[in-house]
């Protein structure tokens, strides 16, 4: 199945002699060969250099007022997540309560961005969160492996949307990607985007399985070309999950994509982000890579569960001057 021109925003450039040239990126998916040529033609990534850049940005010292601001922003960016076989409506209700009021002792603490659950739990979450402003995100497409027939994956998506999900987190077909069947990956994303209707689509690359930074760059571009609204690092079910260097590559991709097409895409690192210190490093990364336009829950999210309590503990310490302990925060 060949799909053309899914992306918006052709950009124009100047060829020789000042002639306007249409650089619409939609053309790149006109065939398997064209898509491969485009993706393989993207600039390479030097792994050591990328790791070093991420590490230096990790040495930024964010204190006092900057830290306060970053912690609050971090809380507002959390997609509070539960994706366990043992999830029940009771568990999801507790999570939703926490999402709306993360700190039981401080009503001024902002709510999180979204709650992220399996499709079967969406209806419960929607009921609990109605009117709160906290979104309901659902994983779909046979998360986390994606190893199911396409029809099943689309039904999975539609069910979540019908139950009220605002956002869909899909997984790409890693098998197809790693064997070079890029157009297949592309077409699947396009189909899921269509099945998502008005819901916002996050495309999970599962960077741990992609292994190289070159692959992360290519998969990022592929996902954006196919119409994703967000690119997301991981399912959180495979190690390594999110890392600073991988997120750096993805932030470069969304920055460059916007420069070429005019379209802004969001980024969500997920899995393995446990402490406020980690979260702040990610915010510094966003600030000094894609830029401050992305410093907003509409364009950057943390896929996390334990992170929230650490953010709350740090927030409390900044307010009271005392190191806190887990007894003072809810475990849901």
């Amino acid at each position, binding site marked *: 199945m060949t799909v053309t021109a899914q992306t918006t925003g052709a950009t124009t450039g100047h060829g020789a002699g000042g002639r306007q040239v249409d650089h619409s990126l939609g053309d790149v998916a006109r065939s398997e060969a064209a898509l491969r040529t485009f993706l393989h033609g993207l*600039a*390479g*990534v*030097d792994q*050591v*250099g*990328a790791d*070093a*850049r991420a590490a230096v940005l990790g*040495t*930024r*010292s*964010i*204190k*006092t*007022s*900057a*830290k306060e*601001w*970053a912690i609050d922003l971090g809380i507002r960016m959390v997609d509070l997540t539960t994706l366990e076989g043992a999830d029940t409506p009771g568990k999801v209700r507790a999570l939703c309560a926490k999402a709306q009021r993360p700190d039981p002792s401080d009503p001024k603490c902002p709510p999180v961005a979204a709650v992220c659950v399996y499709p079967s739990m969406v209806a419960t979450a929607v009921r609990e969160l109605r009117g709160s402003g906290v979104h309901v995100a659902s994983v779909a497409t046979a998360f986390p492996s994606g190893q199911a027939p396409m029809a099943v994956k689309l039904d999975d998506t539609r069910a979540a949307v019908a139950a009220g999900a605002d956002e869909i987190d899909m997984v790409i077909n890693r098998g197809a990607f790693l064997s070079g069947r890029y157009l297949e990956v592309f077409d699947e994303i396009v189909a899921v985007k269509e099945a998502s209707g008005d819901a916002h689509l996050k495309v999970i690359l599962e960077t741990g399985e992609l292994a190289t930074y070159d692959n992360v760059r290519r998969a990022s571009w592929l996902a954006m070309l196919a119409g994703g609204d967000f690119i997301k690092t991981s399912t959180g079910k495979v190690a390594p999950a999110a890392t600073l260097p991988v997120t750096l590559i993805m932030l*470069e991709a969304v920055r460059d994509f916007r420069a070429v097409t005019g379209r802004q895409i969001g980024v969500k690192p997920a899995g393995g982000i446990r402490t406020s210190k980690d979260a702040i490093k990610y*915010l*510094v990364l966003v*600030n*000094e890579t894609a830029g*401050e336009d992305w*410093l907003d829950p509409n364009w950057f999210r943390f896929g996390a569960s334990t992170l929230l309590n650490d953010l709350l503990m740090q927030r409390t310490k900044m307010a009271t001057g005392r190191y806190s302990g887990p007894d003072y925060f809810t475990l849901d």
Partner: protein
Amino acid sequence: MPTFEYAPAPESRSIVDIRSSYGLFINGEFVDGRSGDTRKTVNPASEEVLAEVVEAGEADVDAAVAAARHAYDQVWGRMRGADRAKYLYRIARVVQERARELAVLESIDNGKPIRESRDVDIPLVAAHFFYYAGWADKLKHAGFGENPRPIGVAGQVIPWNFPLLMLAWKIAPALAAGNTVVLKPAETTPLTALAFAEICQQAELPPGAVNIITGGGETGRLLVEHPDVDKVAFTGSTEVGRAIAKSVAGSQKRLTLELGGKAANIVFDDAAIDQAVEGIVNGIFFNQGHVCCAGSRLLVQESIAEPLLDRLKRRMALLRLGDPLDKNTDIGAINSAAQLERIRELSSAGEAEGADRWSPPCELPARGFWFAPTLFTGVSQAHRIAREEIFGPVLSVLTFRTPAEAVEKANNTPYGLSAGVWTEKGSRILAIADQLRAGVVWANTFNKFDPASPFGGYKESGYGREGGRHGLEAYLAH
């Protein structure tokens, strides 16, 4: 007003204890200068006077060399390598123990950001002492003969850009090989060398093995021309290096020189572009560009010049210039008023000669010596800013079409210290590296240093190598 303001994150100054005045370190003790001449050292970020140090004169230099000679003849030159090793290990350990204090002191006296002195300079200082400690009792395996002997007394003069690191590069191999030293730190950055003298005391290094004498150009001249100095090691400007080479002519003195550079950083169209931008920025703005091996000429393949420069400018706008003790500072102060004047003069020449000058918006503090990171495009090989070493945060951009042209332009300089090559193609890296007339070639990276890796230049960038097995050669008798 940026969305994400990093609040001030100052490293505390309270860890250092700067005395109001220092003597000379001769024969294991701090002694007063004999002439009474002194000089003040200043914090370049604030122009605050830090301390008064001695301006060593002829009698002081004589005393220091005599102490080194005595220590060489009686103690150090006779000592078993395994024992020299243990002293050097002790020194390395004390440097590690006092790392934070030394880093803060270095930033205060030199002007470089604390992040650099903490994460780069001081760890490398300790590593150099560890590395050469390990050679002290293995010299017969180093490839310089079965029973290599030291030379004798080394007179060493170092620059102000990496004060304690340049001291380590000089002293560690000299001592490991069995020589004793008299070292003169740069006139604007004496404080970490004087702290090092204390470290020698803490390690109970035999008196006279290391002597530290402060002073300016005249003190340096007295030291390198002293008749009882057997080996001279100098890092600094090519102009002074040339004068030293003339002064040792006809003598038995051994000489190594590490001088200036005007390195080409060559970026091909298939480079990993984001990392290349980082490498360019690191190459010229690290340490405020006060680096002999700085990538001060960007040679970019014409086909990608425009997109590369866009990214480069965007990246330069993220550089944070300010208080060296703030942990988020990327660019610190220029080391002295004199250096600042030189940078300004050459930059003006750049504009006058027709190059296009650009800097990101940058607020310079009111006091202290500061220069905004600067880019010149439309530069040609004939421009002064393409030929002369600026030694500041100023990048000159030239283009090329073919690999041969890149190599030709890169080599078209009297200097030959270092070069950078950016391409994802391995065979090209190796072919270009073969053709570059430079003592250090960095491929897909820049400004990487390691005690195990030899460093030094071709042509007028000097001769001799520091670091690695090769770094022993200068300190062993032939």
